[in-house]
C-alpha cells in the first residue's frame, strides 16, 4: 500500500465538502473512485495533491504519517494528478506548460538557481515521446485543440516518475480513440507498478479499466472492494443510497409537423452547410466528438453567432436573427452546455434567473413586478421539482442538478416551440440525469420539438428519434431510430465511426 488516508475532513465555510475521506492505493492497481456530484471526490484529490490542507484526518505514505503543505511537497512525494478543471496557461508554450510550477534550475555554475531552459525542453520532449504525442514544443497552448491540450495536461502529470497518478474525470472531453489511447497508457503505467486513482461517472470505463473501487456519498466513505465482485446496479445503489429505475425513459410520442427547418447554415470558420428539420414531438440528437462544432451551430440558431449563409425557418416563417432576443421572441430556447458560466447567474436568486429572459413579457417593460415574477418562477420551479427552500434562494446554493433544472425552467418559461439542450447532463450524477431525461420525454409529449446535443452515446441513443452526426464543423450522417436502436452495439459502432471519420 503506497498511499492511505483515513478520516479526512474538509469544510468550506458552512459546506462540509468532505466528512470522512478514506482510501488506499496499491502499486500496480487502478482504483476507481465513484460518487454523485458533490460527493467530495475532487476535494479528496486536492488534499492528496497538497492544494487543500485537511481540517482533520491522517495521511500515510508508505506507512509513514505525513502531510503536504503545498503542491510541491505532494509532487516531491511522487504524487501526480490530472485535475478535473483544465489547468492550462494559454499564453505559454507547450514545453513550459508541461514544466510549469517545477521549472528545472541550473544546479551549478554562475547560473545556479536560474531556470535551465535547455533541460526544460529536453524534459518536455522526453515525456511527450513517452506519450507518443507529436506536439511542437514551442507552440502556444492557446492554439492547440482540446485533445492536444489534454495531452499536455497528461504530460505534465507524467513529467515526474510518480508512484501515484490521480486522474479526475480524464475522459470527460476525450473521443473514443483518445480514450483507447488513455487506457493503453494506464495499463502501461500499471505494469510499471504505479498506483492509479481513477475518477469517472461512466460505468463502462470503470469496468473496463479499474481493479478496485471506492464509493463515496455526501463527503463520506461508503464502501470499497474489488471491481470483479460487483456490478453497476450495486455501485449505483451504494452511490445514491437507493436502487435506481430505468435510465432512459424513452416514450413514443406521435410526431407532428415540422417546427424548425434549417438549410445550408454556414459560418466562415466554424461550420458549413448544416441542414435539418425538427418536428413537433421529436427529439433530434446531435452527436459528435467534443469540438465538432455542434454548440456553434446551436448558438447560431439562437442568434449568438452571426452566420454567413443559410436559412432558418420556424413554423413556416423565415427568421432573421440579430441576437438571442430575436430567437427567444420567435420561440427558440437554448440551454447552454456550461451551466455555471453561460446558463445561470449564480449569485442571483432562482426567481431572478428564471424571469430574466422574459422580464418584458411579465412586467410590461418598465417597473419590476415582484409578485407576478414570483408566481412565474414558482410555477416553473415546481414543475421541474427544483429542490430549494424557496425561490429567493441563490442559485449557487443549489446542487448541480438543481442548478440545471433552474436553467431549463428559465427557458421553458419563455414558452418556446423548440428547445435546444446542449449537453444537459454533463457532469451531473445519475439521479439528476434520470430526472432530466424523464423531463425531456414530458416536453415532447407536450408537442415541443427538442434538439439534444450530447457527447455521450448511450444518452443520444437512448433518447433521440433521429441523430445527426457532426465532424469538424460539417454534418456527416443522419440516422433514424430504426437504424441505430435495433442493434445497440452495432448502432453505437456506426455512430462512433461516423463521428471520428474512420
Amino acid at each position, binding site marked *: 500500500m503506497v498511499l492511505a488516508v483515513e478520516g479526512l475532513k474538509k469544510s468550506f465555510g*458552512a459546506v462540509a465538502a468532505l466528512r470522512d475521506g478514506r482510501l488506499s492505493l496499491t502499486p500496480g492497481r487502478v482504483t476507481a473512485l465513484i460518487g454523485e456530484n458533490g460527493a467530495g471526490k475532487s476535494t479528496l484529490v486536492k488534499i492528496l495533491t497538497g492544494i487543500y490542507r485537511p481540517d482533520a484526518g491522517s495521511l500515510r505514505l508508505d506507512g509513514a504519517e505525513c502531510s503536504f503543505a503545498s503542491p510541491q511537497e505532494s509532487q516531491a512525494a511522487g504524487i501526480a494528478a490530472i485535475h478535473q478543471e483544465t489547468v492550462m496557461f494559454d499564453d505559454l508554450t507547450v514545453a513550459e506548460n508541461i514544466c510549469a510550477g517545477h521549472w528545472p534550475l541550473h544546479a551549478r555554475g554562475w547560473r545556479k538557481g536560474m531556470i535551465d531552459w535547455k533541460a526544460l525542453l529536453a524534459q518536455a520532449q522526453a515525456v511527450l515521446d513517452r506519450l507518443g504525442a507529436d506536439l511542437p514544443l514551442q507552440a502556444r497552448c492557446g492554439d492547440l485543440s482540446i485533445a492536444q491540450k489534454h495531452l499536455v495536461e497528461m504530460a505534465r502529470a507524467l513529467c515526474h516518475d510518480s508512484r501515484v497518478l490521480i486522474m479526475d474525470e480524464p475522459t470527460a472531453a476525450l473521443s473514443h480513440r483518445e480514450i483507447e489511447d488513455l487506457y493503453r497508457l494506464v495499463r502501461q503505467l500499471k505494469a510499471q507498478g504505479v498506483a492509479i486513482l481513477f475518477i469517472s461517472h461512466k460505468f463502462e470505463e470503470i469496468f473496463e479499466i479499474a481493479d478496485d473501487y471506492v464509493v463515496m456519498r455526501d463527503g463520506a466513505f461508503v464502501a470499497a472492494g474489488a471491481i470483479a465482485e460487483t456490478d453497476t446496479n450495486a455501485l449505483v445503489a451504494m452511490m445514491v443510497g437507493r436502487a435506481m429505475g430505468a435510465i432512459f425513459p424513452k416514450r413514443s410520442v406521435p410526431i407532428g409537423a415540422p417546427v424548425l427547418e434549417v438549410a445550408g447554415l454556414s459560418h466562415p470558420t466554424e461550420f458549413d452547410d448544416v441542414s435539418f428539420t425538427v418536428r413537433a414531438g421529436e427529439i433530434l440528437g446531435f452527436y459528435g466528438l467534443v469540438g465538432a462544432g455542434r454548440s456553434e451551430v446551436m448558438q447560431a440558431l439562437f442568434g449568438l453567432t452571426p452566420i454567413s449563409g443559410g436559412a432558418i425557418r420556424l413554423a413556416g416563417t423565415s427568421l432573421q436573427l440579430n441576437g438571442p432576443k430575436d430567437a427567444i421572441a420567435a420561440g427558440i430556447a437554448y440551454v447552454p452546455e456550461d451551466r455555471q458560466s453561460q446558463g445561470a447567474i449564480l449569485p442571483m436568486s432562482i426567481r431572478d434567473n428564471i424571469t430574466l429572459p422574459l*422580464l418584458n413579457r411579465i412586467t410590461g417593460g418598465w417597473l419590476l413586478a415582484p409578485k407576478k415574477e414570483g408566481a412565474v418562477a414558482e410555477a416553473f420551479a415546481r414543475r421541474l421539482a427544483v429542490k430549494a427552500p424557496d425561490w429567493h434562494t441563490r442559485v449557487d446554493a443549489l446542487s448541480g442538478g438543481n442548478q440545471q433544472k433552474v436553467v431549463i425552467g428559465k427557458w421553458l418559461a419563455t414558452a418556446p416551440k423548440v428547445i435546444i439542450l446542449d449537453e444537459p447532463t454533463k457532469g451531473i450524477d445519475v439521479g439528476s440525469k434520470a430526472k432530466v431525461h424523464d423531463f425531456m420525454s414530458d416536453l415532447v409529449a407536450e408537442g415541443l420539438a427538442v434538439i439534444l446535443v450530447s457527447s455521450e452515446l448511450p444518452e443520444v441513443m437512448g433518447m433521440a428519434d433521429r441523430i445527426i452526426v457532426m465532424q469538424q464543423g460539417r454534418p456527416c450522417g443522419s440516422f433514424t431510430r430504426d437504424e441505430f436502436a435495433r442493434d445497440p452495439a452495432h448502432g453505437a459502432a456506426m455512430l462512433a465511426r461516423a463521428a471520428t471519420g474512420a
Partner: protein
Amino acid sequence: MTSLKLAPLPPSSFTWGLRLMRRWELLLAVLLVLVMAGNSLLSPYFLDPYNLADATANFTEKAMIALPMALLIIVREIDISVASIMALASLLIGLAAEAGVGTPGLVAIGLLTGLAAGLLNGALAAGLGLPSIVVTIGTLSLFRGITSVVLGDRAITAYPEAFTDLAALKVIPFVSLEFALFLALAAVFALVLHGTVIGRRLYAIGLNPIAARFSGLNVARTKLVLFALTGLVAGLAAVFLTARIGSTRPNIASGWELEIITMVILGGVSIAGGAGTIGGVVLAVFLLGMAGFGMGLLNVPGIVMSTLIGALLLVAVAVPQLAARLRPKGKA
C-alpha cells in the same frame, strides 16, 4: 439540503459588496450622522442654511457623475475620462459663447459634447470590446489634450450673464437648480436601478455577462448606452461647473475622476461588478461632502481630508474581509 455544488475553487471574485450591502448603507448613514454631529459641535458655522447650501456647491457636479459611474461599475466597466470630458465640453461651451451662442445653445452644446465623448468611449470599450480602463486612460489624455491644444495659454471667460447665472439659480430658497437636479437625477437613477427591468438587467450583466448575453440581453449595447449616459452627465456637470466659475482653462476639473470613483466605491459599489446601490452612493457623496466642508470650516488642509478618505476606503474594504476570516469556521 445535503448537496451543494459551488465553484470548484474558492471564489476569487469579490463579493463582499453583495453580502454587506444592506449593512453597508447603514454604516454610511451612521457615519454621516456622526460627521454632521461632530461638525455642528466643532464649528458654530456648520448648521447654517446658507453655509450648507454653499457646501453642496462643492460636490454637486462630482456627485452627478457618480450616479452613471455607479451603473458603469456595476456592469464591470469604468470611465476614467469623465473629468477630461468635462474639460472638452467646457471648451466647446466656451468657444460657442465666444461665437455669441445664447444660453440654451450653450447648455445643448455641453450636453452634446459629453454625449459624443461618451459614445466614443462606448464604441471603443463596449463596441470593440477593449478594456475600458485602458481606453478611458487614452481618452482622458486625448480629450484634455484637445482642450489644451485649442486653448493654449488662453482662458475663456466671455460667458453671457444669463449662462453664469445658471449656477446661482435657486429653485427654492437655499436649494440651487444644480443641487435640485442632482437630487432628481439620484431619484431617477435609484428608481431605474432598483425598481425597473433595466436595473435587474444591469445587475445580471455585472454578475455574469456571458450568461446575461445567453439570456437574450444585449450586453454590448447596454454598456454603450451607459458610457454615453456617463458622458452626457459629465457634459451636464461641465455646464454647471463652467457657469459656476465662469472660466474655462485646460486644467478645469483635473483629478476629479478619482474623487468620483472614490465616491462610488465608498458607496459600496463593487469594482468586480454586480453589487451596489444608488442609496449607498448618495450617502457616500454626502458623507464625503459634509466631512470635507466640516474640515474646511476648521481650516484643515484639504489633503488631510483626502488622506482620511484613503484610509477610510482601505478600512472599509478590509474590515469585511477580516471579519470573514476571523469568523469561526462552520458557522455561516
